[in-house]
């Protein structure tokens, strides 16, 4: 039926998991090289957008529902703000990472934990927001046949 696009389907089936793994690599290596939450969230959203371009928006909506994307964005922001509240509950200022865990003087465990958690929050929010925006655009377009291009 759609044998015209078989090359793209095979290549993207092979590459979309690799793109997701690359997004996670960029996320967790933000401490040691260029990277961090923003880039990783965008790369993760690009993987989902590639899937929906090749296999259709309804297939993508079944894999990553629109409500899930919205919820993911909200959870990311709550995670980030929650880290600040956790620091306040342990006696420090808002978003003061030194008070997150009990540690000896001069240790960096709280800073590392705080940075990992907020970068995770940024990843969730950016990926969720980008996927939501894409679904909002793609969900309204009438089905354009290939000849109309």
């Amino acid at each position, binding site marked *: 039926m759609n044998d015209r*696009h078989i090359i*793209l389907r095979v290549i993207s089936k092979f590459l979309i998991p690799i793109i997701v793994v690359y997004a996670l690599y960029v996320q967790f290596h*933000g*401490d*040691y*090289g*260029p*990277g*961090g939450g*923003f*880039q990783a969230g*965008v*790369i993760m*959203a*690009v993987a989902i*957008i590639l899937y929906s*371009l*090749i*296999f*259709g*928006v*309804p*297939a993508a*909506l*079944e894999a990553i529902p*629109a*409500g899930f994307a*919205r919820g993911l*964005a*909200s959870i990311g*922001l709550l995670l*980030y*703000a929650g880290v*600040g509240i956790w620091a306040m509950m342990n006696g420090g200022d808002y*978003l003061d990472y030194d008070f997150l865990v009990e540690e000896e003087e*001069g240790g*960096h465990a709280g*800073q*590392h934990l*705080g*940075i990992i958690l*907020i*970068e995770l929050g*940024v990843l969730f*929010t*950016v990926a969720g*927001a*980008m996927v*939501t*925006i*894409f*679904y*909002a*655009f*793609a*969900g*309204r*377009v009438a*089905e*354009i046949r290939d000849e109309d291009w």
Partner: protein
Amino acid sequence: MNVGTALISVGLLTMLFVIAVAIVRMRNLFAIVMLSGTYSLISAAWFVALDAVDVAFTEAAVGAGISTALMLGAMLLTSRTAKVERSLASLAPLLVCIATGAMLIYATIDLPALGSVTSPVNAYVGAEYLARTESDIGVPNVVTAVLASYRGFDTLGETAVIFAAGISVALLLGFGERSLTASMKDKSGRGRKL
């Protein structure tokens, strides 16, 4: 900055200028979206030439990657060509742009040299971040340390802005379920496949 880096920067900035002029003069929206993606990619190359790899990475991912895809999606909702503008109507904006540009170029005479050690950007807080990251945070990448720990409030604000943008687009344009319901009415199950 030695001569080689300066030449590369001048070359890349000239390409950016040419692309910007081309974007303004074109009327085919598809070509304009593609050129804006090229603009972002050459900006990313210029940022690498200036030794700002984190910024270059983000610019390449966001500008050349997802922004092009979203602009194409938005372009599908409107039309393929831009409207014609009467050339007389753009005379007053042209004069405003020329005046503002001249004032900005006049102001750059007073700026410190690029990368100079004594400039306020590199001397006061910046130098202290570079000196204290090792002992305060212990993370090798100073950009992440500044972004996530020293300026964590700003990053929280940025994340909130991205969240607000996503939610407002979803509220304005719909939550994306229309295409799914439309294709469920069509019993053969064909979606919008390529």
